[in-house]
């Protein structure tokens, strides 16, 4: 239920030595590696000015490619870099809401998928999203890919849902998660489709990504129900809301 990852923050907040040492450390212990790459053009300019390298070139130099690595964002990748990311089997966690909130750019999801890259979805921190709903990210990913490509075929609903499930599991190195098949972990989400937002939509799987994010009625993790009737069983949601309000006020100073 818990696996640790080594993850220095980003090329503009971590020294090359630390990036290199972290990769060595992770590989010595057989754990995965994660960092931010190619999120903004400011980052690209920083890397070119300070290191004389584009962000992905820098990652290559530092030993930060391979199938044990996944990057957050991967927005500003050129054609050759997209092919390279796919070739080395490095994952990309696409975070459409955060990227749009910060005006960071639009990840070339359909190009990455066409090249054979592993792509999952992330909510990113709530300070650049204000939510944590992966179904929303699937919806946003579908719409953003179509805006970017000016094409309604850039990303279909089932492909978007795959990003939200199996694609993310591949980024995290979990071939035992992400699909409902015999032998896989019993991690299951049940979404209500009889409410006003979804009732009458014929293709219910497409509805999951096309229509507003559906209410999760029952959620099972590792064969155990943690959400029933849309309510959290393992903690008191109202108490959590009160605590986060108080903590946010305290940090605001």
């Amino acid at each position, binding site marked *: 239920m818990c696996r640790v990852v080594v993850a220095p923050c980003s090329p503009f907040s971590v020294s090359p030595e630390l990036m290199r040492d972290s990769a060595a450390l992770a590989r010595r212990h057989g754990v995965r590696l994660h960092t931010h790459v190619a999120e903004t053009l400011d980052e690209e300019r920083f890397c070119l000015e300070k290191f004389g390298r584009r962000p992905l070139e820098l990652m290559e130099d530092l030993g930060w490619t391979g199938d044990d690595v996944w990057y957050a964002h991967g927005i500003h990748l050129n054609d050759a870099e997209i092919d390279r990311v796919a070739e080395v089997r490095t994952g990309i966690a696409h975070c459409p809401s955060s990227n749009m909130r910060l005006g960071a750019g639009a990840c070339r999801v359909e190009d990455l998928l066409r090249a054979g890259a592993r792509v999952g979805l992330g909510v990113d921190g709530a300070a650049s999203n204000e939510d944590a709903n992966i*179904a929303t990210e699937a919806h946003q990913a579908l719409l953003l890919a179509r805006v970017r490509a000016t094409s309604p075929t850039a990303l279909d609903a089932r492909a978007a849902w795959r990003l939200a499930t199996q694609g993310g599991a591949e980024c995290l190195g979990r071939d035992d998660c992400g699909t409902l098949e015999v032998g896989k972990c019993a991690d299951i989400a049940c979404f209500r489709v009889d409410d006003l937002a979804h009732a009458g939509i014929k293709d219910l799987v497409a509805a999951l990504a096309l229509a507003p994010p559906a209410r999760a009625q029952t959620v099972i*993790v590792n064969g155990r129900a*943690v959400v029933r009737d849309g309510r959290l069983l393992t903690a008191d949601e109202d108490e959590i809301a009160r605590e986060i309000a108080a903590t946010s006020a305290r940090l605001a100073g």
Partner: protein
Amino acid sequence: MSFLLKAGLVYTGTREIENGWVHVRHGVIIEVGSGPAPEAGEIVDEPNCVATPGLVNAHDHMYQWATRGYVADGTLFEWLRALYPVWARIDADSVRVAARAAMARLLLCGCTLSTDHHYVFPHGRPGLFEALVESARELGLRFHPCRGSMSLGDSRGGLPPDSVDDRAPSRSAAGFDVPRGGRAVLAVLRLA
């Protein structure tokens, strides 16, 4: 004891099964089908739902749940420069409260497996990584916590202020030799 989930539609990721069911034992799927269901110790029936694989969150910074709404119209670098000094005030308690909020929201929206990338470790504030791991365990989320770090403070040409620079990076990860499962968690809890 086995567990049976029935749903109006089961979407396995490749197949769509009307009036389908998923049979589970010891946390693992042992059968997927439709029609007459096998006997099980516990049955959950969701005829008005689509059952899909649990959603996976591949990037997050859960501590940020306590700093939502800042710099509503800024670029990444503008947003970071404004928030680093606020984040420098976090401690184990604020990380725990924020992580519980982030995880609750993830679970309530159908996420079953999440990572978290935590890279702010203010000097002299122990227990941040433990707070994340313990929160996931309490709430029942499958969890891949990332031990982050920052070492390029502004005095060395980086973006973050030196106050959040963490020159002893990923040290917490150095001590464990079992990359998965409970023993790894214990090792990290000891060393983080």
